């Protein structure tokens, strides 16, 4: 009798120390594979890919190895007349990539490289009657986009450009019986969405509306015997969900409810010793996305070889301090 818990087994020879140098080499080399098939296939998210790479490099103190000028020029060429920014040249603008671009330019202390007023107009134009945000002009609604909108505006110091009260109302209408949040009202809770919604409520100063004890319980129950965290009940553990759950717990002041030593073990076991980089699970292929969230997770748990990361923006704390942005966390 009883369900088998879905989980992975960490082999005894899995990595258990952090290979920062290898990860930096992996990310530095990643962008030079421009004529690779796999790389080309991921063009539709290139702007976010660059944000993942740059942020993890900055967290490791290696940002100088990236080609700043080339990246800033690329971002400029991705801003459209409407103000929105696309993942790559030839692609359409979207809030997801607008946020990534603004994050990158904030890392580089260079938001003036783009037309900021037009970005603000673009974001404002995507807010709907009910306070929600569409991802682009085609109208997909998702609490992820609510997060992208307020995070972009907060980084630009222009949060007053949208109807924050209505935006908050919409996000709260996506709260579920388990204290979590989904994509839209009625959607099931999901760790990625919970990260976006708690991050959103942090930026808008509304975290007291969260049922932190109930949500914290759901979140800490994501930790599996392997130490890794999953994104929903009965799913496999994953490095990226480890970040989303961990960051959400940090935002609601309950990070001590998970077993940090076991999570650290799991994240370290997801490294690829040969190539550098982190995979979603031990033994899988690495990518920049999981490399950022692996390193960021370790940072949030206090690893001193890595710069402290901000749980809301997933950017180095020193960068946010520089622009005077300190989003609320529950205490």
């Amino acid at each position, binding site marked *: 009798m009883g369900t088998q818990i879905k989980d992975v087994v960490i082999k005894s020879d899995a990595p258990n120390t952090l290979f920062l140098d290898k990860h930096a080499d992996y990310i530095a080399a990643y962008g030079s594979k421009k004529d690779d098939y796999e790389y080309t296939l991921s063009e539709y998210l290139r702007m976010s890919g660059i944000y993942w790479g740059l942020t993890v490099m900055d967290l490791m103190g290696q940002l100088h190895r990236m080609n700043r000028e080339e990246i800033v020029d690329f971002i400029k060429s991705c801003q459209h007349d409407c103000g929105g920014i696309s993942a790559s040249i030839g692609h359409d603008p979207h809030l997801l990539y607008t946020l990534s671009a603004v994050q990158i330019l904030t890392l580089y202390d260079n938001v003036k490289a783009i037309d900021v007023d037009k970005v603000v107009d673009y974001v404002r134009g995507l807010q709907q009657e009910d306070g929600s945000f569409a991802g682009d002009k085609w109208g997909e609604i998702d609490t992820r986009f609510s997060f992208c909108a307020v995070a972009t505006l907060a980084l630009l110091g222009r949060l007053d450009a949208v109807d924050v009260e209505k935006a908050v109302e919409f996000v709260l209408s996506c709260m579920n019986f388990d204290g979590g949040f989904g994509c839209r009202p009625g959607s099931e809770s999901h760790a990625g969405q919970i990260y976006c919604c708690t991050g959103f409520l942090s930026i808008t100063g509304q975290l007291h509306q969260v049922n932190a004890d*109930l949500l*914290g319980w759901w979140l800490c129950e994501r930790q599996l015997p392997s130490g890794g965290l999953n994104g929903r009940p009965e799913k496999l553990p994953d490095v990226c969900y480890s970040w989303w759950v961990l960051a959400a717990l940090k935002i609601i002041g309950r990070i001590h*409810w998970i077993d940090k030593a076991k999570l650290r073990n799991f994240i370290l076991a997801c490294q690829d010793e040969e190539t550098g980089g982190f995979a979603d699970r031990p033994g899988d292929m690495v990518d920049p996305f999981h490399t950022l969230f692996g390193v960021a997770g370790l940072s949030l748990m206090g690893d001193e070889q890595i710069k402290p990361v901000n749980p809301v923006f997933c950017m180095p704390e020193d960068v946010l301090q520089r622009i005077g942005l300190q989003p609320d966390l529950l205490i």
Partner: protein
Amino acid sequence: MHGRVKVKSTAQQEEEKRKGREKKLKVYLTVRDAIFSKRSNGELDEEALQFTQQLLCSNPDFATLWNYRREILLHLETVKEEDEIQKLYEAELFFIETCLKMNPKSYGSWHHRGWVSSRLPRPDWTRELSLCDRCLSLDDRNFHCWDYRRLVVKASGVPVDQELQFTDRLIGSNFSNYSSWHYRSTLLPLLHPEPGSEPASPCRKQNNTHTSPTASPQTHSHRVCEEQLLKEYELVQNAFFTDPNDQSAWFYYRWLLGRAEREELISCVYVSREGERVAVAFSKPVNALTEGLMLVLDGQQQQRVEWRSAHPRFRHSPVWLCELPPGSVSDINNEHNLTVHWMEKHTHRDCALYTGRPESWCRDSATDQELFRSELSVEKTSVLQSELQSCTQLLELEPQNKWCLLTIVLLMRALDPLGHEKETLAHFQTLKEVDPMRSSYYSDLCSKFMIENTILKMEYAEVRVFSLSDKNLSTLCHLDQLLLVTHINLSSNQLVRFPPQFSMLQCLEVLEADDNAIGNLEGLYHLPKLEEVSLKNNQISKLSDLEPLASCPRLTRLDLRGNPVTKTANIEAELAQLLPSVTDLLL
């Protein structure tokens, strides 16, 4: 990026793969460039539909290609007859279905399907619903498909009870289905809402069975009427007896056991004559600066009072403070009447300060408000009793089952928190042993329950002394409930700090917290009446840790024996400078 296992391969295999990829890349780039150039030339034709189809099959997250297709379809709408348009969109649905078979979790494909359905001249919602059925039968956790189902249900007016039956079927075939339990939690309050604040009555079997399940904010009126609740208990019990380790049913059960949100009200108004100060407590955190809070003293509106939260870190707080104009209440021979109005919520609370009294308050106590337990009807009480019995039986079969243990604790609290205190503590001990990864969670939850019990005991005894020593407390909460407490004893626990919320204890005079691991005193901030603080054997290590105490004007006695800070050079002189009011210092 997910679930791709790394496989070792020989150099020769690598070379072959590389060649294969190179070839694919060439084809891909040719098609992509053709699409981009057609689009920039404004070509909105069927050839572009073919090209984009070719790439989207294998790469449905390439959002711009879906956008281009929509532009083309919108254009074709303007040049074709309705029957042709219908056919065009049906072909589009067919193509999306192919994409979904390849990748059932692509945001882009699902969004496009919703868009196409909304453009279709004659939509066939029955077909869409059966597509959802098929998709969910392959993966009953696919949240994209669940969301699409909700869209279809809303657009076509599927009755709520029909959807509830759908979850009955799914749960009946497999209890372990979190998505179905979740869906149930959104449907039940629509179908069987808790009747306002009236006494428990049979569910209103009203006509809303035919409204469709629109999104219901779970934060607000999300409770279910009692009659239906009792049925749900039975369903969940079947689930966890069948599979006691399946968490879905337990999460759902905890929701059923929960209680309605508290009404928004002013729970306490406190006034100090000598301090010329008012403290107001609310049932939930508010921002008094934006909530239209108005103070009336002896019939006069006090325009100039400045409200501040108990600690500057809180923009939203359940406790707010203000100073009264100098001299307005200080004469002990006068009686004063105070009213605090909460304009936004159309509510207020009065408080009379009688002649000769140094302070006064008016409030609902935690016991009046039934703060820490559910308001249970006789019927529900007997059902919960029998639930408790069933869970206890289950625990005998599965003594290590953490879900069952925690549920027993919650049932005990719903029934009689004080009566079950001893068993609750024992169960928490077991929980920490069987589920050590979450031991901090159980410690904090147990602390919360012990604090609730101590508040209840204090209020039954009608005293202002809060005593909770030697109970393994790991955290402090409900501090807004301690606004009137004058003496607090927290010694021999595992506390590491006084959180900023501790500054809500506006009447505190004596604080004992010996034998903890406290290193952070942030919450000992502007406590106007605090005189004695005993912090023997804690972890206060730096002089700066003590800085918050400098804001407590009446502090005279401070016991720091057994703290690392006592080893600091010149400690006495340093402390005399930092805390000049302290005359009785023990190091």
